[in-house]
């Protein structure tokens, strides 16, 4: 479900006026990215589902007080998610690796494909574990939640350039961990998501 920023603001206004359907459409638009961000941070799908519900409940309760003061609704929502994650991590000390998040079967893929995907994911999870906490946060917001650098900066309370720097160093570290070499050392300018697959991130959430 794709909505532009103006449509999101209209839905927010309707939800504030007491329209439950508008809030339902906002949930439909944001729930997947919120869940991905949360599960990439807490690693356990069941906890991520509970926290996702908690984030939307808080959003529903706080929506009458929400004012778009330079922060779009998406940024405000992910701030709630980030705070929920921080509280959860603070109260749940048991460490679970990101590979736990892939316990779910991978749809209708064949056994070989499932094994290959699972192996690739475990490698990425291991590379993420080697990052600093801020670098992991940036990766989660930028690639799993699909936020833009500006939105991620707003959620983390940092400058946009700082977020870009964290992302650059995180990618470089993961490449070193995964052994991904540069075929050539040229600087190219292209889209952030070159694949034509299902878009996520800023273009995906408006």
């Amino acid at each position: 479900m794709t909505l532009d920023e103006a449509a999101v603001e209209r839905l927010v206004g309707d939800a504030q006026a007491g329209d439950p359907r508008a809030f339902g459409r906002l949930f439909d638009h944001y729930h997947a990215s919120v869940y991905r961000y949360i599960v990439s941070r807490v690693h356990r799908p069941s906890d991520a589902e509970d926290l996702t519900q908690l984030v939307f409940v808080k959003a529903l309760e706080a929506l009458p007080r929400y004012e778009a003061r330079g922060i779009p609704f998406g940024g405000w929502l992910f701030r709630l998610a980030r705070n929920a994650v921080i509280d959860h991590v603070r109260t749940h000390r048991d460490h679970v690796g990101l590979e736990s998040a892939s316990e779910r079967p991978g749809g209708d893929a064949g056994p070989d494909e499932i094994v290959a995907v699972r192996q690739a994911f475990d490698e990425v999870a291991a590379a993420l574990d080697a990052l600093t906490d801020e670098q992991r946060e940036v990766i989660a917001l930028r690639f799993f939640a699909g936020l833009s650098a500006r939105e991620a900066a707003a959620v983390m309370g940092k400058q946009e350039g700082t977020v870009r720097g964290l992302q650059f160093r995180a990618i470089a570290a993961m490449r070193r961990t995964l052994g991904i070499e540069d075929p050539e050392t040229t600087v190219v300018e292209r889209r952030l998501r070159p694949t034509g697959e299902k878009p996520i991130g800023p273009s995906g959430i408006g």
Partner: protein
Amino acid sequence: MDEDFVERRPGDLEMYRRLDACAETRLAPDAAAMARIRAALMGQAVAMADAGAATMALPLQPATTLPQGPFLALRRPKVSRSSAAFLAACLCLGLVAGSVAASAAGGPFYGPRLWLEEATLPSAPLAHAHGQLDRLDARLDEIRVATANRNAGAVEAALLAYAEIVDDLEAQAMGNPAVAADVLDDLAHRQMVLIALMGKVPPQAQDALAHALQQGANAVEVIAEDGNPGDPVRGRGGGTTNQGDSGGTGNNGGGGGGGSGDSGSGNQVRTGTGQDGKDKPDDPADEPRATPKPKPTPKPKPTPKSTPVETQQAPTETPSESSGGSRDQGGGMSRQDQGGDEQGDAD
């Protein structure tokens, strides 16, 4: 923000692809779980919308339907304000009543009250004396009230205050004949009122009453002496003869007597006439006659270096030596009065 241009190397693209793949294939939410969450959220949203509508409708309800408790709670500040004002008024009233009670005769503030009364009296002698007379009336009233209440302490306190006021009046009248003449009758009248209270005041206050009466009697006597020296009660009638002799000079004679009371010469002459005991000329033969002019006094030889005292003494001695009858006494008196006046002035 659809496009995000960053400086990157080709190897980064492979990294992005892997991360995107992870997000899409391994971090995707469970559809059934999200459906449950959505259903729960929608139920809560509907409930909140209903509650919000009910809240919006609440203020439209008339105030009469509100329960008594919240209504009183809303008005509590107003009630508190009026209660505070009432309390303050009660406190002020209590303070005033307490002060009045404490400043009554015998109370702890009675002394300060008397001091305040005295401090606020006018400074002009006559007005001051009248103010003190008013204070005496107030004390008499207090004595009457306290006597009726059988409050011996209050009677005693008022009597002592009375005596002090009488003392002050006496001091005021001593040097001021006008004040003395003005207050004498009033003071005597109040003394009679005080005498009438004898036997009525409580036994514990009898001593204070006796003291006040004694103080008043002394004051009347002293003021009478000071303002009217010819009072026969005291047997000093020097001024009376002077009044008979020269009419208008009687006061001068009295004043001279007063002024010369300490001097020997003036007192001797007045005592001689006063011993006759004649306030008024009973005998027509004693009626005053025109005083003949004294013989011209021979001028003394001019003494270039004579003192003024010697110059004054020379003419006064001359008539005394030549006078023999009552008429001469008058003449002599007038001269001696002059000398007495001078002495009095000198005093």
